[in-house]
């Protein structure tokens, strides 16, 4: 039902780190109503518990239940600013989309349960292997049920064509929740994806070519996320689309489910945690001080708040994937895993997308350093905020040069999963 192995612990650490960061961000956020803070933190802990369960579940029913826990709590957290119409719109779109995706996933789960007679993922794996070797199975039906389950998983990791909720929700939700959703929700979704597809469906992949389907989804996700981010003016929306494209990069590692690919996913998730949370923290700080969430609000930040501007530049360049920052290391490991499996077309699409992404990330850097704003007083931030910012900057700098401990940690975490 629920399994405690090193794989689950790895993801629980990532999710706990994201939750801790979100709590620290929420303390500093000026958006949240002090009256409902108790419920806010309670819901945040509930969604963390749901994500722990998502990372550890090995039964189809448990996977669905934990997914629903996380989804329902996320809907409420996204709509938490009840006086803001954008927040309510975000919650409404999230609910509608999430309900349809969860329903589709449940239909796929029921089909799979009917065909194999069990809900436990390990047993499904052996039953599918048996059924395919005996030949008394209709492959199209298994493919259909896997596709429906992929609908639910794809919604959680915001991959095309289930990504439509992501920009609106990220834009409307309170910024700490956006940061949390972009990192923790994606990590939990990938944990679920790896458990389902690696532990559950790998025995069926000789007869059904779902790896091609995953590769196409990955390529589309990267491309759509990047192209849609190009014209964005709102920084939250831009980071939402960039987050979608990073989901596509992560999915690249999961296409053929080799151990290198899965390791690359785990490593990139940790690096992505630091980069993305750091970027969102800067967005929170600027939104509190300047009151703006658009790129125009970042003008002249290089002179007004140099430490913040340099940190933001580090995060943005790391998100692009420029050496010697952590994002480059993560992308390199991912591409190495993809090229090793000879999926050259996917690697080329990934490279082209990284190049295109540079444009919209550098637009913010250009606004910060090369443009001036009318308001030229320098901004001051509390020492606590600066220390928290450094907590994200330092790993982004270090992991680009020395990522070996992370490599070993991910290899150990995957060890039990393979067996």
């Amino acid at each position, binding site marked *: *039902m629920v399994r405690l192995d090193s794989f689950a612990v790895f993801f629980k650490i990532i999710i706990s780190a994201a939750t801790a960061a979100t709590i620290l961000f929420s303390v500093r956020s000026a958006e949240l109503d002090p009256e*409902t803070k108790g419920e806010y933190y309670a*819901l945040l802990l509930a969604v963390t518990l749901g994500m722990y369960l998502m990372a550890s579940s090995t039964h189809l029913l448990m996977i669905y239940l934990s997914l629903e826990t996380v989804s329902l709590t996320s809907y409420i957290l996204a709509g*938490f600013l009840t006086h803001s119409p954008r927040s309510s719109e975000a919650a409404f779109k999230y609910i509608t989309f999430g309900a349809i995706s969860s329903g589709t996933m449940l239909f796929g789960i029921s089909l799979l349960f*009917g065909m194999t*007679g069990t809900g436990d993922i390990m047993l499904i794996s052996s039953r599918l292997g048996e059924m395919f070797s005996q030949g008394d199975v209709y492959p199209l*039906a298994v493919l*259909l049920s896997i596709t429906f389950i992929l609908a639910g998983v794809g919604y959680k990791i915001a991959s095309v064509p289930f990504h439509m909720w992501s920009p609106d929700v990220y834009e409307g939700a309170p910024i700490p929740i956006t940061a949390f959703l972009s990192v923790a929700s994606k990590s939990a979704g990938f944990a679920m994806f790896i458990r389902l597809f690696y532990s559950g469906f790998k025995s069926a992949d000789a007869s059904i070519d779902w790896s091609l389907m995953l590769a196409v989804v990955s390529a589309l996700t990267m491309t759509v996320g990047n192209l849609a981010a190009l014209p964005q003016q709102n920084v939250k929306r831009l980071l939402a689309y960039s987050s979608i494209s990073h989901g596509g990069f992560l999915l690249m590692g999961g296409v053929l489910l080799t151990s290198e690919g899965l390791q690359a996913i785990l490593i990139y998730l940790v690096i992505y945690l630091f980069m993305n949370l750091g970027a969102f923290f800067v967005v929170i700080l600027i939104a509190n001080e300047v009151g703006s969430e658009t790129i125009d609000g970042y003008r002249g930040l290089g002179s007004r708040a140099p430490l913040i501007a340099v940190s933001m530049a580090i995060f943005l360049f790391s998100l692009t994937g420029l050496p010697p920052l952590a994002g480059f290391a993560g992308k390199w490991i991912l591409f190495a895993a993809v090229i090793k499996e000879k999926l050259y077309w996917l690697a080329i699409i990934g490279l082209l997308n990284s190049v295109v992404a540079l444009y919209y990330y550098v637009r913010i850097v250009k606004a910060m350093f090369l443009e001036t704003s009318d308001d030229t007083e320098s901004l001051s931030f509390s020492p606590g905020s600066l220390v928290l910012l450094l907590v994200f900057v330092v790993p982004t700098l270090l992991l680009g040069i020395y990522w070996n401990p992370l490599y070993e940690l991910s290899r150990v975490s995957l060890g039990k999963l393979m067996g």
Partner: protein
Amino acid sequence: MSVALFIVLAVFILGGGLAVVVTRNVVQAALALLVSLVAVAGIYLVLYAEFLALVQVLIYGGAIVIVLIFAIMLTRNAEYPRTSDNRQWPLAALAALGLLGVLVPSFLINAVRGTEPSNASFTGIGESLFTTWAVPFEVASLVLLVALIGAIIIARSGPGEN
């Protein structure tokens, strides 16, 4: 005998479902849904799962459809008669028929396992809910708690109250 019962119930389920999708009156759609769901409870009875049939009638018929009709009543006063006006129904019908075309051969070829009722009595379900299925049970109660808290947060806010 059970085949005849199944066919009668299936007619109600499919008829109800079709009526939900086809009718233009939202209230009629909700009531057709009720017919369909209570017929599903009948199927559960044919399969000797009395607890499930009871729960189906209670929760689906007694709670969900009621809430649906309340929601319609509270939000759609002026637009009762003509609300569903969907021009995409040919595409939807095509997709549904395609799904049927894939599912029917699969259920004819694959043996559907797990159809032997095991521990489906009231005591059996109660026992397994607290032993084999204890963790999903507790997680489900967490889901309910979260939904309750969320509903109160969203519904409570009024303009500028202190």
